[in-house]
């Protein structure tokens, strides 16, 4: 205690460790009895000794064979490298901590005694006491980390004064709420972003004296900086009474930099235009002064705030000024979280991100969940929000027990909302956040880990990251969502599987209708074909090793089968096991050489993966498979129809051709708009399927050219693209495209094409 009083401070890392020692106590009552004796001495030494021992690392329990104990338990090499940081803590707070630790020791002793006596009732009572002491201790240790924002705010008057002098403006800085307390690490995290915003306000925000006079404002510009608590969040606002953001200039700049198209910029709401300032590479100052604009943009500010789970919003009134509103959590160390269960795993979702839990059962599921552009959406408080199945997203095995019900946790990050389908919501609990190693931070959808009450590790979901990974982009209203549903445009959804010999293969996820586990004993060989009873019939199984360069499955009792449905026919591919559903973002054309049964070789997780050519494999096993597909109404119409395809990517040309052929069309494939136009002039076609982005002549021009031709006026044109922007859609429509679909979505592609052809021939018959 004496040392604390004289120094008035204590090493920061000791408090960090103190917090982490407490975690052990918080992790669960069952662990308390073993955890506590390691952490507190049995005797009652001087206060400072106790604190020291509490802060010491728990001794390691198991000694390695013949190892040197001193070496094994030596401090890790990274410890102590950091410059000693200090923190000011009121002595009264430390004394309070001492008292609570004293109570903790007492409770521990009582607990040990009651356990020894086997007195269940007394154990229960003491455990309750422990619970009480622990929460107070937790609260107070956290308090030692809280610092008033004044420690950061205090440096701003000087910055503003310097900037005012350099730019020849008169500016006053009005500060309020500087006694608001925030966790020290958070305060450090927001110092730089906040400095940037203040600099911006003084440099760009506040208008020049002449402009102020012209606008009828006083000569002195005012920057207001305030901090306040709002529940478990801290709100920091920076407002200036300057000229406000010049939204048309921002939009023009964004168009110039290619961030948005001119048409999109035209239609933008005020909020969307304001949010453009958070885009990377957008500086609106006419000239970059030496004050701000030093390569740190508002995008960096935004990501710094989001890193600590905060949000930033901007609002502006032309001529009246701009306000930035930062919302950050009080602390990152202990947060309330919602525990959910998905595919057998327990995941924690930070409470600050959760809005509501919605539960559907039976028929209600089908009525509430709609599908738009391949994205599931639900109506939530008058708005359509996208929903994502967390089990599928994480590549976990769905739990059949939850097939008839659906729990959706509606989460938010900033103004974006997303519904997460989970198996079950367990409860809310205060959790101690533990950091992830860099390998796991890179995954992108985890914010940390925590220990559950059963002592098991649980992952904490990073809601903002999950939205990014699901391409849930910022949108403001229902109209926006309906206009542009998020898609997996450039990414291809693949199913990654193990086959024989530890080799890995991938198939397009949309081709797989289900995955089944079968016993090899059930497989019968009839006339060289492998068949297995499946539902009310037999399923033909294909051995991949017969048709693609993969090792055969060795002798085994069970295997997994990828069941694929083509029209009314089914076929199963035998694999070892499914690894994961992955989103492959790489270029498919540059993926090395393909061979028989293989479309491309991909690199996933640093391992080579063969992307299987499913159609080729099926055709190799049964050349008549696709031809012999029993004709549904749709296929009869497509029988013998000629389709002209324009697609520059070899991979997609092959894939779309295969889609069309499997549905019975005759396909003429071309590599760009020019070639397609020549083919169109020479041949007779019933429909055109075209990519939009192609070399030589793109799909827009190609469509326009076709529409100019006499026999091209009414031909159905379907655009397929990985572009999913409103602008591309609008341009395609203007060029004369009848419908617009995203590549790889075979089902909608085929049904849309069939619909177009039917409409077109009905029209012709009607006209004839």
């Amino acid at each position, binding site marked *: 205690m004496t040392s604390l009083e004289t120094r008035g401070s204590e090493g920061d890392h000791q408090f960090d460790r103190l917090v982490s020692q407490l975690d*052990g106590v918080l992790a669960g009552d069952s662990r308390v009895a073993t955890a506590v004796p390691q952490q507190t001495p049995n005797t009652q030494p001087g206060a400072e000794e106790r604190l020291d021992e509490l802060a010491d690392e728990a001794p390691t329990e198991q000694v390695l064979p013949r190892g040197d104990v001193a070496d094994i338990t030596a401090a890790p090499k990274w410890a102590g490298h950091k410059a000693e940081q200090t923190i000011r803590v009121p002595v009264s707070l430390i004394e309070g901590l001492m008292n609570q630790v004293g109570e903790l020791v007492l409770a521990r002793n009582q607990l040990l005694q009651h356990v020894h006596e086997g007195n269940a009732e007394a154990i229960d009572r003491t455990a309750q006491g422990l619970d009480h002491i622990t929460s107070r201790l937790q609260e107070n240790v956290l308090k030692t980390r809280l610092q008033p924002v004044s420690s950061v705010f205090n440096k701003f008057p000087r910055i503003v004064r310097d900037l005012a002098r350099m730019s020849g403006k008169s500016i006053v800085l009005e500060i309020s709420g500087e006694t608001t307390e925030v966790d020290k690490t958070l305060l450090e995290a927001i110092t730089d972003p906040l400095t940037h915003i203040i600099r911006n306000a003084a440099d760009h925000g506040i208008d020049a004296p002449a402009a102020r006079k012209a606008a009828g404002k006083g000569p002195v510009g005012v920057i207001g900086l305030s901090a306040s608590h709002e529940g478990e969040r801290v709100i920091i606002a920076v407002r200036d009474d300057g000229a406000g953001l010049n939204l048309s200039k921002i939009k023009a700049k964004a168009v110039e930099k290619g961030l948005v198209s001119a048409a999109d910029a035209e239609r933008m709401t005020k909020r969307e235009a304001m949010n453009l300032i958070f885009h990377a590479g957008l500086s609106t100052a006419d000239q970059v002064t030496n004050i701000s604009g030093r390569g740190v943009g508002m995008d960096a500010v935004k990501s710094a705030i989001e890193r600590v789970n905060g949000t930033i919003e901007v609002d502006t009134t032309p001529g009246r000024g701009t306000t930035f509103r930062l919302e950050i959590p009080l602390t990152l160390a202990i947060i309330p979280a919602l525990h959910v269960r998905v595919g057998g795993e327990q995941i924690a979702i930070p409470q600050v991100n959760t809005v509501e839990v919605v539960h559907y059962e039976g028929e209600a599921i089908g009525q509430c969940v709609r599908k738009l552009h391949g994205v599931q959406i639900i109506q939530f408080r008058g708005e359509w929000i996208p929903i994502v199945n967390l089990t599928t997203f994480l590549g976990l095995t769905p739990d059949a027990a939850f097939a008839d019900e659906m729990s959706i946790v509606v989460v938010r990050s900033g103004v974006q909302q997303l519904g997460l389908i989970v198996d079950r919501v367990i409860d809310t609990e205060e959790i101690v956040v533990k950091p992830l190693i860099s390998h796991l931070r890179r995954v992108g959808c985890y914010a940390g880990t925590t220990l559950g009450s059963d002592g098991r590790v649980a992952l904490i979901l990073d809601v903002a990251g999950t939205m990014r990974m699901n391409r849930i982009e910022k949108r403001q209203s229902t109209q926006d969502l309906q206009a542009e549903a998020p898609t997996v445009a450039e990414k291809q959804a693949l199913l990654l599987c193990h086959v024989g010999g530890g080799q890995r293969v991938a198939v397009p996820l949309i081709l797989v209708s289900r995955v089944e586990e079968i016993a090899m004993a059930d497989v019968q060989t009839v006339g060289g074909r492998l068949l297995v009873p499946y539902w009310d019939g037999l399923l033909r199984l294909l051995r991949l090793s017969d048709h693609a360069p993969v090792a055969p499955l060795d002798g085994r009792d069970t295997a997994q089968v990828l069941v694929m449905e083509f029209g009314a026919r089914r076929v199963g591919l035998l694999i070892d096991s499914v690894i994961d559903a992955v989103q492959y973002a790489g270029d498919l054309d540059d993926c090395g050489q393909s061979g028989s049964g293989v479309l491309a070789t991909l690199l996933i997780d640093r391992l080579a993966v063969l992307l299987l050519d499913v159609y080729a494999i099926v055709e190799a096993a049964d050349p008549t498979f696709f031809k012999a597909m029993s004709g549904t109404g749709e296929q009869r119409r497509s029988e013998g129809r000629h389709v002209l395809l324009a697609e520059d990517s070899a991979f997609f040309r092959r894939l779309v051709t295969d889609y069309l052929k499997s549905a019975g069309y005759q396909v003429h494939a071309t590599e760009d708009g020019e070639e397609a136009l020549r083919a169109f002039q020479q041949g007779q076609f019933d429909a055109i399927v075209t990519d939009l982005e192609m070399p030589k002549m793109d799909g827009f021009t190609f469509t326009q050219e076709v529409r100019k031709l006499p026999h091209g006026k009414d031909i159905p044109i379907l655009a397929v693209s990985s572009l999913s922007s409103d602008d591309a859609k609008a341009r395609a429509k203007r060029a004369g495209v009848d419908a617009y679909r995203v590549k790889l979505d075979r089902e909608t592609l085929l049904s849309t094409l069939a619909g177009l052809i039917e409409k077109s021939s009905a029209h012709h018959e009607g006209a004839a």
Partner: protein
Amino acid sequence: MMAGTAKSAARRVIRCVTFYLGDDVFAVEVERAQEVLTDQALTRVPLANRGIRGLLNLRGQVVTVFDLRHIFAYDDYPEGGDLTHVVVNTGEATVSLLVDREGEYVEVEATALQPTPPTLSADLSRRLQGVCELDDGRLMLLLDVDAALDF
């Protein structure tokens, strides 16, 4: 003390904790090793690199478990067998290396450590400090912990 001369280098001893993947002997320096655990409940991490097996709770500390068999391109761990965790300190955190079983403590002369043979792939040999023949003639592969977990 160690500076420069061949003589002092010759006396330098590397103290190792060994463990097995199949019949192959691997080792880490004893200074890096913290402890050995068996039979731990793991939490798997969906979407993570396959080199990461999961997470475990070591007295309130969350430890990431690396799948050493995957990293060194061995088949998966034998089914049903008890897996062993060698807990080591990296520059960043305390992590666990999942191995088949633990071996013994050995001391080898620094000079006995040879570069990895060129028959090993570049990706594997960059994860090793070298190989060393033990007294009984077996080869011991000394891990470069940081490189081994760098992916």
